[in-house]
Structures are given as C-alpha cells and as structure tokens.
C-alpha cells in the first residue's frame, strides 16, 4: 500500500491521514448483529462518494443459529478503491469483529499488521466459551501481529442514548451503527448517506431513528477523540465512466433485466418459481414490479414452477423461472418438455454448493454439466452465464433475445456470489438497448392447416398464440413430425428432429459477439479461461501477471452452449490453457471434449470464490513449468 500523509488536528490529538488506493473492510458478528446492514451502508456510502466498490456478503445457512456460536457468524466484505476493481479483495485490511465467534472464524483472513476493531463488551466468559476460546484472545497476546483496538461498543451505544425510552435490547441492536460510525471515521467516509437512510427507514419510529443516528455519530466521534486512534485513511474517488449510477446485486440486476427485456419485446413477464436460497430475492424483487405488468406465481414446487412457465410461454408471456441447483434437478423433465415444444422460456439457476441441499448460502459453479447435459434424451438448451453482478442485467436481456429468436429454453447460470455481491451499475441509455422483435402469426402458413413446426432460417418455429382464430394446434412431449407438428413415431423423422433441435441451438453461435481477449488474441504461452463469477479474480490475476512481464492472456466465457465461433481457434493459439472453476473441472471437460485441447483445471470447491492469489500462484507454477520462458 503506497501512502501519502496529511496531518489533521482533531480534538487535542494529532491524526495522520494516509491516502491509499484500495481498502478491504470486513464486518463480522452474530446473525443478529446487523452486519449485512452495516456492510451495505458502507458500500452505498463509498459508491456515492465515488469509489469503485465490490462486495461479498457471507451469511450462515441457519436464520437464527444459537447466538454467539461459530455457526451463526455473518460477514460482509467490501473493497473500495480509487481505481477499477473487480473483486472484493483477497486479504482483509480492516476486520471489525462484533464478538469472539466472528473473530475466531475470520482472523485468518486479516493481513499481518491489519487493523482489528473488536467490540470488547462482547468478549465475556459465555461468548468466549461458545467460540471455543479457553482464554480471551484480547489478553493472551495471540493478536499481537495486528493493530488491535478494543472498543466498548455496547457501552458507547448505551451512553449515547441515555434517556431513550427504548429497551436496552433495542438499543443493543444499534451497536452495528456505532461500529459503522467508527469505521467511517477510520476511512474518512461522509455520514450523510447513512443518516438519510436511517431517516427514510425509521421515519415512522422516531425513537429508533434517533438511537441509530446517535450510535453512528458516537462511533464517529469516538474515532475522532479517543487517544488510541492516531491514524486514519482516505481513498480518493475512482476515475469512472461518467454517467448515472446505481448499486446492484446480481439478483436485482436479473430482475431489472428481465423486466427491461419484456419491455423491449413489448410483453409482460410471468415469473413462476418456488422459494430457494439464493434465488428467492429475484422473486421478492419481481413481486414489487406489478405496475410493470409482472405476474409472479409462487408455485407449490419447482416442477409446477417450470411447467407453469411452459403454459405462460404458450400463452405469450416472457416466461421465466428461477431456482438453485436442487430446483433445477426437479425442473429437468419440464425443461425437456420446453425443448420438445420449442417454447421460449428462461430458466435461472443461482448456483450454490451441492450435491443435494449442500451449502445453501455458499457459492459454487458445479451445475454447468447439469445445465448443458442434465436431461433425458438429446435435449439441448442455450446456456449463458453473466460474469459480474451488473452483467446479470445484460445477460437477462440476452437470454430473452435468444429464447424469442430461436424459440428455445435458455438457461442462465448465476451463482451465490453474483447473486448477493454488488457493484455500481451505470444506468443505460434506453436507446442503447436492443430491440427484441417478436412475431406472432395471425394467418395460416400452410395450404389448409396451420403448420406449428414450419421453421424459419434460424430453425425457429412460429410462436402462435391461443386465441388466434384458425391457428388451433396441439403441442406436447411426444415426438412431432417436423413442419406439421403431428405426433410421429417415424424413426427417420425422430432422427431428423433430434438433429434439427441440436442444429438450432448450435446455430445460435452465429448471433453471438466475438470473444474479447485480455492480452494477446494472436496467442502466447498461457491462456486462462473461465466462466461466470470467476471473472473478477481471473482478470485481476492475469493483469498482475502481465504487469510482471508474463506472456499470459485470458478470456471469459458468457456463452457456454453454444460456445462462440472463434473459441476453438483461440484455444489452439496458446501453448497452455488453464481453467479455474469452482467445481472439479466441468468447463475443462467440455473444452477438452469439444476442441481436443489439453486444458488444465484449477479447481476450488469450498463455497468461497477464488482469491486473486490462488490464480496468480497457479499461473506462476504453469509458467515455471514452461522452462522459465
């Protein structure tokens, strides 16, 4: 960290303000400690201030795990910077621990010499025991490698609200704002944004608003006046493309993208789904868009969700279902029906740790093969994957485009990390958005009868809507004769249909943009290839290695079925190919099968995203294996 110094006098001490270009702060505490809220406020404040930001929330699977337990620790990491960043950061520069359990499960990620703010009031015997500490780590010297600040957050919060009519329990709930206030002082963040939020949020409960305001300010003043704090930091604004911005999580971006796509197509969204972490927020968000004509249907299970969407697509809606891995397993037969009936439906999989219930709140990319191959019969669907939270907006529109143009189900692979991670999103100019053209036939396309499987140049069949006179037709899961759509058991026809459905999906490649290569598209020593949410870590790692002079490039796939047309050639222009994935090598397998290229897999399956250094290390190792070239 390079730093420039400035001196500022506050109270009767001298505070040095160091300027840094990037800081990673992590808030950790009990599920009930309001860590997500504190982190979100810090994110908003930093984004509005003008930094680039990237976040990583991390919550336990249990809603109310026993208070103070390791299982109940909830965390929120934010990286804010004066330059372009793509990940929430490998190492934490400042850890805010609200209790012993939070400290214990997170201290390993704090950089040596990092800032450690702890709520000393929570380090009592009971909490220490629950976290499995024999003696308090605050006193036994085990934290001497860090800059430890013991802060009496409970006491500060109570004192700040002397005379408040709130119960001491209710006041206790404000201590996250006391912590936040102190962090704001530490990193020179303005209070206004959060004060405004408190007023808007608790407008109807003035006592609560008052208590939170007091807590925030008290934390801030504590930093300003307490003698132990002699240094704080600032991170200047980043140089960001001018425009109007808003912070979006991946799930929010998906919801907004779907509604946008429907508008661009002149249609309404039907979202049929069954609640499941980490996809439920898409439902929550879409259910607030009723004035956009969005119909949400909370079905009785994922099978009903999937099949309701088939009905909705048949009836003419932009039909979407969303779930996570276990839900996709249940939807598989329905997806087959959508493939056979050739209807435009969007299937969102916000992947989480598997198999089975797995790690519901953690991220993973292990459903790629399920997406590409996981159905009975030859059953191809288009598969797309956004690579950042904000990219979820673009890919939702792209999924709708492909579904409509090709009359096909499209699977969109997000994951827990994209879903809950947030970044600034530049609000697009409406005119820059694509027009999604939808044609519903009004007249027969055959001599005497309507031909529901007569195809256009893209092999798409007509989207004829019930209610249209003269176009009455039947669709279904039994094999159909091409063109007429009559049930057919003819062997030649079946093979023709299997090949036609495959050719239709393969043909989507013609409509896809060219690959964007970071580094040298003409080839070189090493190509790092990834897909989905690993984009930030891979790109940052490759940039670092290139800065050190290594001949390494990267490409990131957002289209997984079909692949872009120039992928095969690109792969062959590199001596080696490395593929980091949060699974045991699923994309590697597909690339090897498709292109006969010796792809090396770098896998991490811990429910956690890659660190930049994980990838840098792998690149370095591979480059060394290249005889020091």
């Amino acid at each position: 960290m390079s730093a420039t110094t400035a001196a500022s006098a506050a109270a009767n001490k001298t505070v040095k303000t160091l300027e840094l270009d990037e800081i990673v702060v992590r808030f950790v505490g009990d599920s009930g400690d309001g860590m997500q809220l504190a982190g979100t406020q810090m994110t908003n404040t930093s984004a509005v201030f003008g930094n680039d930001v990237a976040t990583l929330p991390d919550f336990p699977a249990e809603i109310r795990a026993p208070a103070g337990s390791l299982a109940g620790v909830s965390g929120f990491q934010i990286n804010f910077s004066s330059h372009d960043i793509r990940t929430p950061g490998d190492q934490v520069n400042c850890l805010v621990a609200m209790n012993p359990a939070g400290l214990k499960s997170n201290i390993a990620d704090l950089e040596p010499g990092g800032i450690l703010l702890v709520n000393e009031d929570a380090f009592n015997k009971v909490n220490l025991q629950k976290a499995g500490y024999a003696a308090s780590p605050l006193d036994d010297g085990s934290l001497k490698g860090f800059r430890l600040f013991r802060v009496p957050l409970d006491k500060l919060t109570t004192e700040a609200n002397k005379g408040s009519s709130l119960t001491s329990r209710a006041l206790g709930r404000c201590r996250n704002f006391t912590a936040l206030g102190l962090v704001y002082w530490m990193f020179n963040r303005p209070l206004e944004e959060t004060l405004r939020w408190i007023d808007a949020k608790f407008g109807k409960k003035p006592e609560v608003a008052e208590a939170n305001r007091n807590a925030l300010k008290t934390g801030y003043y504590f930093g300003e006046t307490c003698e132990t704090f002699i240094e704080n930091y600032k991170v200047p604004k980043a140089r960001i493309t001018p425009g109007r911005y808003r912070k979006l999580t991946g799930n929010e971006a998906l919801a907004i993208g779907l509604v946008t796509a429907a508008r661009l197509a002149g249609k309404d969204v039907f979202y049929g789904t069954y609640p499941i972490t980490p996809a439920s927020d898409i439902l929550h968000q879409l259910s607030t868009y009723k004035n956009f004509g969005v119909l949400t249907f909370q079905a009785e299970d994922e099978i009903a969700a999937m099949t309701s969407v088939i009905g909705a697509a048949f009836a003419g809606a932009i039909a979407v279902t969303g779930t996570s891995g276990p839900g996709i397993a249940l939807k598989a037969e329905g997806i087959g029906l959508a493939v056979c009936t050739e209807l435009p439906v969007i299937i969102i999989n916000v992947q989480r740790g598997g198999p089975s219930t797995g790690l519901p709140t953690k991220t993973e990319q292990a459903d790629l093969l399920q997406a590409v191959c996981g159905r009975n019969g030859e059953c191809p669907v288009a598969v797309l994957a956004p690579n950042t939270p904000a990219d979820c907006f673009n890919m939702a529109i792209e999924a709708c485009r492909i579904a409509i143009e090709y009359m096909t189900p499209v699977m969109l692979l997000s994951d827990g990390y994209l879903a809950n991670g947030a970044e600034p999103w530049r609000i697009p100019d409406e005119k820059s958005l694509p027009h999604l053209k939808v044609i519903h036939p009004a007249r027969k396309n055959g001599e005497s009868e309507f031909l529901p499987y007569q195809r256009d140049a893209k092999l798409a069949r007509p989207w004829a809507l019930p209610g249209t006179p003269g176009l009455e037709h039947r669709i279904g899961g039994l094999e159909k004769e091409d063109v007429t759509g009559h049930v057919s058991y003819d062997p030649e026809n079946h093979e023709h249909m299997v090949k036609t459905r495959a050719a239709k999906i393969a043909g989507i490649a013609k409509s896809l943009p060219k690959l964007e290569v970071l580094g040298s598209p003409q080839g070189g020593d090493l190509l790092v290839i990834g897909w989905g949410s690993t984009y930030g870590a891979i790109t940052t790692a490759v940039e670092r290695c290139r800065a050190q002079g290594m001949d390494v490039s990267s490409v990131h796939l957002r289209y997984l079925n079909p692949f872009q047309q120039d992928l095969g050639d690109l792969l062959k222009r590199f001596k080696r190919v490395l593929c980091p994935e949060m699974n045991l090598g699923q994309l590697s397998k597909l690339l090897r099968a498709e292109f006969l290229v010796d792809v090396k897999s770098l896998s991490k399956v811990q429910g956690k995203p890659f660190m930049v250094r994980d990838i840098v290390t792998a690149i370095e190792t591979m480059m060394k294996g290249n005889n020091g070239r």
Partner: protein
Amino acid sequence: MSQALTQLTAKDFASDQETRWCPGCGDYSILAQVKKVLPTLDTPREKFVFVSGIGCSSRFPYYVNTYGVHSIHGRAPAVATGVKMVRPDLSVWVITGDGDALSIGGNHLLHAIRRNIDLKIVLFNNRIYGLTKGQYSPTSEMGKKTKSTPMGSVDFPLHPISVAIGAEATFVARSVDVHVKHLEDVLVRAAKHKGAAFVEVYQNCNIFNDLAFEYAAGKDTRDDHTVILEHGKPLIFGKNRDKGIRLNGTTPEIVPLGGDIKEDDLLFHDERAPEPTLAYLLSRMHHPEFPEPLGVFRAVQRPTYEALANQQIATARSQHGEGSLETLFDDGETWVVN
C-alpha cells in the same frame, strides 16, 4: 377467421388425428360429450385450450381441434395455471387420469383446486394405469390384483371427490362415461362455473379393468347403485324410486320410502351450502354399502386466483402508474459521476 358461434357443432371440434384408444374404451364417450358441449358455450373455438398430462386419457387434446398441450405426467394443472394466469380470457381445460392426477400429480391438483383458478378439471377415473398396461392406481380398491400386485394391493385408495373437497374445491361433480345426457349436463355446469371445477368421470378401461364401474354404468344396476344429486331435492334412488337416504345423526342410512318414511324425512341436497360438510359426507357414500352420488356435490362462489392476481396488477398500476424503463432504472439510490 372466427366462425359465428351459433354455427359451431361438434364436428368443428373434431381434429384430423386418428383416435387411438382401444375400441370400446370409455374415453370415446367422454370425448364425444365434450365435443357436444363445447359449441354450446358461447366461446369461439380458438379460445379453448386443452391441457393434459400423460396416460391414455391424456391423449385427449390431440383429438379436439382447439389449442392444446399434451404435457408431462401429472403436471397439467400447473401448465394450465400458467396459461390461465397470462390469458384469463381463455377457457382452459385440464384432462387427467387417476394416476396422473392423484399419484404423480397429486400436489398440483390440490394446489390448483385450493387456489380456485378457473380451470375445468376432468379426471378420467378408470381405477387403473391404462397406458402402462395395467398396474393398480391410487383409486384402485384395496386387494386389487394387477401385474404389479399379484397378491393384491395393500394400500388404501383415495376418493377423488373427497380429495377435491378437502382441497376446498368450489365446484365438485361426478358422472359416468356412458351416462351421455348426465355427463353432458355436468360438463356444462362445470364449464359455466367461475373457478376451479373438478369433475370425476367413471371411465371404463375395457382392457385392464373392465366393468370396474358396472354397478354405476349398467342399465340394470345403476338405478339401485347410484343416486342422482339435485339441488334442493331429497336423495331418492332405486329402480322404482322407492329408497332414500336419511341422516341418522351425522351418518347417512338407506331407508325405504312409502310406509312411515316420507320424502321430507330424507336428506335434501344443498350444493350451495357454504360449509363443505354435506358434500364431504356424500363423497363418503361408497359402493356396495351405498348408492354412489352422481351430479354436482358442491357449487359455491369464491374469487378466482387469476382474477385476484391480475387485479393486483391493475391496482399497482393505478397506485404507482404504469411502470416505465426510466422508473425501473432510477429506483432507489442513484448518483452521478461526471
């Protein structure tokens, strides 16, 4: 072009597909009655959608010249729900079998009914799995010997009407494939009901479960073994209409008419009773102990799911105005970078 409604006949609803049920199958008769009823409903042909699951019965949509979806096993109510929510103006029918509706699709059936979504659900009950060649079904009687149960089945059956009532159905009826006129009347009533209408049709599978409902279907037996439900009328049955159903406490009993017992002593049917108690009690009258009720068990009004869901959209639009991309994008905290 939409044909003038009055001109439509059963023929207009015949598709060009060859019907492939076994000769003598009860499905033919049900198809014929449906085709007879559709033209009478003041609905243009293009506004009908038939959705089915999988089974012999579920081939039905191929044989009517309307819009149709032959979906997957058990899921027809969910597919139909999607259609109806998006297009409340369509007349959406679900065709299903006893296995389709009550085994694999039991969940969807319950939820479609409890939501009171305006679907016409016709369950072809043949008490057997026809298409998979004769395994017992969830409506097969205990001890049923089939290919999969050579020593007899050891599970207790479900009773479709009881299930529907348990799921809070607003319209529940039963008829028999060969009771042409009765079936026609019941289908018309179902079609005109606003909300989920559940109709069980006793259907003969002459290949794998022949004569399962002979007591209710046969000319010689049916009068003594069924009782026709009519709203506001007493429950009288028998070839000579000389027997009735009387309530003894909360238990029905068969009593002879004439002598001491007058019509007024009998149980009077009330399909509009707000509580489903009576309808449920009737659904528990089983052969051979009782004559089995045919007709409308229950017909009450409740708002429909698709109407309420679409009403919320209208309300949101009047409260917040029609959404635009601008309001969608600018929602929440935004900031400007220069």
